[in-house]
């Protein structure tokens, strides 16, 4: 006995031909299982039709603002890069600007100030002091005591002790 489930699964229920239906009717009178299968297939087809009818009704009652929504989404997608950069700048602009200023200041300190020091050292190296100059220059110091003053100070203390 050939069951009819293959006919049911192979063809959409609404597409069954008269020949198919005659074969099915003849078979289901003597096969309970296939009769149940036929009922289920019919029900499945009906449920799908209802589902599609509902979808058609939903499409007919589409959201009137859908077009506006799509266009807004499109514009947002198109300007997404610029917007994100602007937002990023608004959020971090002050920090970025201060970091740039700090970097510039550090750059000045690193490259300009050391150059000044180096030139002083180079000048000092170009003017060497001889031992004689150092000895002779000592006397020019106003704060330095003369030899007589030192000797006087030493012996005055001894005299006072006596």
């Amino acid at each position: 006995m050939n069951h009819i489930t293959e006919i049911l699964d192979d063809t959409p229920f609404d597409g069954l031909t008269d020949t198919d239906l005659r074969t099915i009717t003849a078979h289901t009178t003597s096969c309970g299982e296939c009769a149940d299968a036929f009922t289920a297939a019919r029900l499945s087809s009906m449920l799908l039709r209802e589902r599609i009818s509902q979808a058609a009704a939903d499409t007919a009652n589409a959201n009137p603002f859908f077009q506006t929504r799509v266009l807004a989404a499109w514009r947002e997608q198109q300007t997404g890069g610029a917007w994100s950069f602007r937002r990023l700048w608004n959020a971090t602009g002050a920090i970025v600007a201060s970091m740039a200023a700090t970097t510039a200041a550090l750059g000045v300190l690193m490259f300009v100030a050391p150059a000044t020091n180096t030139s002083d050292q180079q000048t000092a190296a170009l003017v060497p002091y001889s031992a004689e100059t150092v000895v002779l220059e000592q006397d020019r110091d106003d704060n330095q005591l003369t030899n007589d003053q030192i000797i006087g100070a030493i012996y005055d203390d001894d005299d006072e002790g006596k």
Partner: protein
Amino acid sequence: MAHRFFRNRSQAEEAAQETFLKAFAQLKSFAGRGSMEGWLTRIATNTCLNMLRSAKRRPEVIASDLSDDETEFLEGVSSSMGRETLDAEQQVVAVDLAERLLETLSPEDRLALTMIDGEGASVNEVAEVTGWSESKVKVRAFRARKKAREALQKLLGPTRP
């Protein structure tokens, strides 16, 4: 088109929006080959398929999950073999049940069943929209039909001793 795949209005709108955004972005690739409607339908189909793939699938529909209305509906409909028209309440229940059934199918099977059995599309039309071979469409539809039928058969239970 998105409403065929998503009962939830916001999901359907999201799919439609995504479709249009993709279409705008790829407008140059269209280049007037074929119909604009066919091209958009193909983008929409792929978008809906991708969204369905990311959605959670229901493993199966079992009788204990059904509400009283759904059980009553199944009993009433299965006992009447004619092509009766449903009232508004029955329509709501039918759509709920259909959605439950569809959620148990893979996105590809669901698409094939919805388009061929629900909308009456031909195998060739589905193949064109999805980019699948015709034999793949037939296999998907066969598998989906069988799974839906068996699930409903299980829910209805044996009607004869």
